[in-house]
Every structure is written in structure tokens, then in C-alpha cells.
């Protein structure tokens, strides 16, 4: 089962963990077959938010919600269950500076007309 581990950090902690350490963590997880993808993100003030209403896209700057911690990167992993996913998340270096949200990945169901 796939889980997306979302890394949240406060703005001044975006570089608190050296890139080399994150790289090593990613390589280790990839070697053990757990990691499907992982990327760090530029700060939230580089973001553009897109909405389509009445067929027309509108674009505003910044992320949808102003919160203290911002999305700083993600790890897409393949784990047996939530306990294994939590164990992996605890090994992600920025966990000690910010927080890691572990979300199960839902599979799209083409037969489903609208969300339940």
C-alpha cells in the first residue's frame, strides 16, 4: 500500500537539515525498495494557487492556507501497513525539526461517479 509522507517545516527551518542527510536517507529507503519518489520543495512563497470556476482559471500567489508550518517536501513510499509507514516516516530527517503527515494513498475507482 502506498503512503505519502508530507514533510512540514516552519519557514526558518526549511534548511535546518542538510541536503546531504536527506539524500542519504532517500538513497537508503530507495535501496530497501520502500521509496517510490521523494522531492524537496521551494518555500511556500514561490507557489501559485490555481482554481477553475465556471470554466475559468484564476491564479493567486501563495499556498491555499496560511499556517505556521509549510509543505517542504514529500516521500511517496510503499509500506505493508500504517505501522511500517510510521516507522519509515520516523526515519525521515526533517521529522526532528518539523512534522511528517502520513497519508494513505487512495486508488481511483473509475466506476465511482462522485465522491462518497
Amino acid at each position, binding site marked *: *500500500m502506498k503512503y505519502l509522507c508530507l514533510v512540514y517545516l516552519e519557514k526558518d527551518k526549511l534548511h535546518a537539515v542538510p541536503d546531504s542527510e536527506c539524500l542519504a536517507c532517500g538513497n537508503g529507503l530507495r535501496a530497501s525498495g520502500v521509496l517510490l519518489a521523494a522531492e524537496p520543495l521551494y518555500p511556500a512563497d514561490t507557489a501559485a494557487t490555481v482554481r477553475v470556476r465556471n470554466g475559468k482559471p484564476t491564479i493567486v500567489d501563495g499556498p491555499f492556507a496560511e499556517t505556521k508550518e509549510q509543505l517542504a517536501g514529500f516521500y511517496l513510499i510503499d509500506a*505493508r*501497513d*500504517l*505501522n511500517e509507514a*510510521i516507522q519509515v516516516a520516523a526515519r525521515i530527517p526533517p521529522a526532528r525539526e518539523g512534522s511528517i503527515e*502520513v497519508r*494513505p494513498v*487512495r486508488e481511483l475507482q473509475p466506476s465511482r461517479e462522485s465522491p462518497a
Partner: protein
Amino acid sequence: MDASHPIHETVNAVYLSDSRRVLATLIRLLGDFNVAEEAMHDAFRAALEQWPRDGVPANPRAWLVSAGRFKAIDAMRRRQRFDSLDALGESADAGVVDAAAWADAESVEDDRLRLVFTCCHPALSPDAQVALTLREVCGLTTEEIARAFLTPAPTLAQRIVRAKAKIRDARIPYQVPAPAELPARLDAVLRVIYLVFNEGYTASSGASLTRHELSAEAIRLGRLLVELLPEPDACGLLALMLLNESRREARTSPDGEIILLDAQDRSRWNRDFIAEGIALVERALSSRRFGPYTIQAAIAGVHAEAPTAAATNWGDIVGLYDVLAQADGSPVIALNRAVAIAMRDGPAAGLALIDGILDRGELSEYRPAHAARAELCRRLGRTADARASYTRALALARQEPERRFIERQLEELS
């Protein structure tokens, strides 16, 4: 079938004694809480039909698990939902796996522990952990839990539905944690049990002081845990609950008024609970890897062993609070320690500590802190300070007996 048939009573008795075990094993075999619950009820229905005809099986529990499993697989086939079999995890395998898989006594006992740890999984909200544990492990109905927690039944039902959906969707595994994770996960289980106990022992709001059924349920859970996983702090928690419970009869008057520890009629304390609690404390202490529940139980044990309030060994109690305060720096423990020091060294020493805690602003909204300060001021003859603190405590009281108690204290001041 005639409801008065003796087999009907047998089935009822098996339901009371074994339905939780059957459910716990069916959840493992079928991989889904709701499917397992339905299967268990189908199995008991089948028992009502078949046992009068064929006799009660030699091992009713194994029969029920087997019947439930086949009923569930049957139901899945009938609904022609073979595509969802994958989603049910190991259920497809369960259909072909030999009965030996669940007949093994050890794995069946483990199922009850799996159920406890899954219901108390830290990925579920604390409210959901409590509701799910009472529903699935204790077998209380949604209505019973709702009544005990003064929560509307639909809210509680919704909480349980969401928790089960999360277990399924996030794939919270049905397993006993690995040794490395066990201490933290056991703490979560102990916290749930103690929360249930306390809600029954000192109801957080409402007209009556206690809700006895919840405390009894928590003690039952504590016993189950000690039986399945005799870790020192599990023994410590059970001891703590038993020692507190031993005073239940003595801590309220017939008209529901609070009687504080020093004024309680100690002949009304339950000696059986005290003996069992103290034996458990000693067992936990001798392990030398006990935790905060064991220390609190040891404190309750010192009170329980004192023949009169005046004979209480406050020196021992202060010593135990020192250990507890080192393990857990919470201001509530600091407050209790201050009260114990007041008892050992006089009210002035305790008051200085309580004022320090309140000055740090940590317990300014905590009723017992103001009530304790008021009591020490009263003993020191500082009537105006006592009145101010009782008044503050009264404003924070959320329970009728508490309010009346503080009002009586205020009246006695004048």
C-alpha cells in the same frame, strides 16, 4: 425456537463469556471490523438454530469462529463481490487455511491483545480510542457508551464508524506491537483504560459524582491486560484503579455529598480490592522497571494501609511524589506533592509551593489547585485569602457535588 429452551440460556452464557474472543479472532481472519461483527452475529444465530438439534459442540468458541468465518465468506459470495476480496486482505486465504490457524490457543489469546492495541492505536483520536475500545473490546453498545460519556448517541456512532473506516483505509494493522514499539504503545492502552476509569470515578461533569459501570469496565479491561501482557505498569495501573475503587463507597454520603479522604469511614473501604491492589503494587515494584502508574498506586497503597487519617505516613507519600515528579514534570503532580508536603511539614510549607505553581500560571484554571490553596490558607487563619481561593474554585467547578462542597466550605469560613 422457544426462548425458554435451556440451550438458549447456554448460547446467552457463551455470548457473555466468549463473544469478544470470537470477534477478535474473526477480525483477524476476515480483516475487517464490520464484516467480522456481522459474521459473529450470524454465528450466534446459527448456534441458536443448530445447537438445540445437534447438541452444544465440545468447543463452542471454535465452533462459533468457524461458523462465523463460513457465514462471512458465504455472504461475500452471495453479494458477488469477489472483486472486493482483495480489499479484505487475508480473507481469501482464510477460506482455505486449515482450522488449525485459529484453534491454536496462543494465537487466539493474541487476538484479544491485537484487538486492544488496534483500538488504542495512536493514529486514532483519543475520543475514538476510548469509544472503539468500549465498543469492540468490552462489548458495550453505542447507546451505553453515549450515555456514560453524556454524548449524543449519533455522535458516538459516527465516531466509531470513522475510526473503523480509518483502520481500514489507512491500513492500521491488526497486530501486537513489536518489542521495540511496545512501551510507547502500551502507554497508549494504559491511558485509554485510565481515562475510562476516571470518567467513571470522577465524572468530568453532570449531576452525580461517579458512574460506576465505567470504572468497573476499566478494571475489567485492566485485568484482561494483566492477564494477556503482565507488564509492570499494567499491573501498576490495575492496582491504582483497585485502590481508588476500594474507597468508592466511603467517598460520598448517602445524599451524594463529597467526603474527603481524611474524613472517610475507613471501615467502609473494600478490603479485598486493597489486598489485591497492594499485591499488584509489590509485584510491579519488584520488577524495578515500573512507571508512573505503579508509583501512583504505591501512594494510594500508603493511604489504604493507614488505619486512620492521622496515622498516614506522609513521609513515604512525599518520597513517592518526589520519584513521580522526576518521571513526570506535570504541574498536577507538583500540586499533589505540595499537598503531601503540607501534611508532613505544615500548611505554610505546602502553601509556598502551591503559590509558586500558581504564579507560573500553570494551573490557574485548575479547580483543585485553588481548593487546595484555600484549605491551606484556612488552616493558617488567613480567612480572606481562603475565601478568595474558594470563590475561584467555585467558579471553576463543573459538577454539582463539587459546587455544594465548596459552598459548604465557604459557609464554614464565616
